[in-house]
């Protein structure tokens, strides 16, 4: 099955799939396995929420053929995977138990919620190493503002859990990771995948959409939401 991660869909709770990273660094195999997990989540899974559990020190360049120059297509493939995780038809929660560096931090930023233990740190050392921290250049600023994003990227400084909570990079911190996951899942329920993922899409688009366009997008999305069984049930209950 999988070598670099484990994937348990519906094993503990029918609505929840748990994806656990089992490798400190992201290698080619892990990228492929994450793609396979995305296939499964998009095509077959009945779960409503995915918990991405673990930590990651970023991309393992020693895994690439040292005789070959790194080309840009590999980075493109990675970004496609991160975007795909960001747009999964499920709500995603990153539950972090160790340092999130580079690509690891990027994966966490692609999730809908982030929770962690107090010892977790977040950093993007790429610029100090002479390259770019992927599309974190795009995502991080939306969470923390351009000022903090510049500082974190240009200095490569690690953000501790407490500061991450204050800046809105993480949503909850607790020494007991299982407890904070349970709390988050409770807070997210009842989960309506369509309404949830439409709200996420409009939020992801919010910083770069003109208001005139945004209202049209909202109306199209709202019409979809109110046509779903979940809302029709709500309406029936409200009306007695």
């Amino acid at each position: 099955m999988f070598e670099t991660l484990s994937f348990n869909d519906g094993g503990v709770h029918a609505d929840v799939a748990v994806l656990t990273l089992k490798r400190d660094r992201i290698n080619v195999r892990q990228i492929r396995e994450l793609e396979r997990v995305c296939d499964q989540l998009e095509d077959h899974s009945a779960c409503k929420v995915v918990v991405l559990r673990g930590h990651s020190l970023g991309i393992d360049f020693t895994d690439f053929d040292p005789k070959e120059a790194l080309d840009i297509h590999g980075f493109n493939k990675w970004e496609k995977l991160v975007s795909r995780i960001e747009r999964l038809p499920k709500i995603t929660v990153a539950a972090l138990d160790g340092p999130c560096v580079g690509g690891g931090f990027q994966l966490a930023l692609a999730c809908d919620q982030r929770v962690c233990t107090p010892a977790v740190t977040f950093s993007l050392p790429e610029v100090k190493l002479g390259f770019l921290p992927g599309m974190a250049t795009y995502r991080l600023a939306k969470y923390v503002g351009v000022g903090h994003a510049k500082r974190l990227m240009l200095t490569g400084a690690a953000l501790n859990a407490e500061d991450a909570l204050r800046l809105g990079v993480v949503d909850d911190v607790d020494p007991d990771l299982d407890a904070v996951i349970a709390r988050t899942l409770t807070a997210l329920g009842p989960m309506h995948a369509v309404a949830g993922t439409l709200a996420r899409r409009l939020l992801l688009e919010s910083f770069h959409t003109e208001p005139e366009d945004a209202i049209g997008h909202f109306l199209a999305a709202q019409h979809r939401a109110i046509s779903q069984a979940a809302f029709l049930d709500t309406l029936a209950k409200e009306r007695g």
Partner: protein
Amino acid sequence: MLDSRPRILSVGTANPPERYRQEDLLERYRVADPRLRSLFTSSHIRTRHLYLAPAGPDGAPVESQGELLAKHRRGAMEIGPQAVEKCLAPLGLTVKDIDYLCCITTTGFLTPGLSALLMREMGFREDCSRVDIVGMGCNAGLNGLNPVSSWALANPGKYALMVSMEICSAAYVFDNSMRTAIVNSLFGDGAAAVLVRASEKDERAFAPKILGFNSHIIPEAVGAMRYDWDDTVGKFSFFLDRDIPYVVGANAERPLARLLATHGLRRRHIAHWLVHSGGKKVVDAIKYNIGISEWDVRHTHSVLRDYGNLSSGSFLFSYERLLAEGRVRRGDYGVMMTMGPGSTIETALIRW
């Protein structure tokens, strides 16, 4: 094994020479009502190519149904042949090479139809078979491509040509109502031609195979889009219901799901989306219901911005822009999607 499924070998488009900004129309026809003006200026259309009549005494053009029909015929015979030339010339072909001609229009009813007029105008061979698809509206390009592709498959090695000719300015009614202003601010004139052939000789051509179609009709919305006779003005008049975007949006997933399932594909396998430029709201409805991005509909939007809604030919203008962009790779899948009266949604799957 050689693949002899029908392929789209070429595309050509043409528009009337005169191009207008939305403001130009308001000025030309002295439209003063702020509600009507805002329909023109707040739309996502910047320019359209149109055959416009001069302003009448009170501003609005004075054109009888007979004059409009003559404009439809004249316009189609001007831009139709240009689109055909542009489609055939790159392959070194002429109309003499064409064995089957399918003409599509909704902007006027003529007998003999546009196919006969086009054959005379351009000198097609006398044994070229033909068919006219008249009155099916914006979706008709795929209603035409379906039989064209079947004909090509049944007649391997022979060329089939499909030509959409929509002179929407011949369907204009100016009566200062919201109903007609919605139409007058949206549609543009244009012609688009595609050449289809099923031949092993095209195996190495960079031309997409047509893999299949899926249709969807929404009978309860039969009246949502109409082009019917209006006794009060003595003309045919378009009617577009304000709920169209929502009706189309709520149904769009269904034909798409069937189309993809038939071929064992998922939405993520589709690299290129060629969606009819029906209007801003209907494109938004498609985007949020089938979960495709603004990037996926970039050509749909740019065609709408530059030409307005060209009815049955719109998606072929997007197709032409997609090819010009140079991003398509061999093996890529594309979905074509058009929507219109019926109410209907038509889809096609293609692969380069």
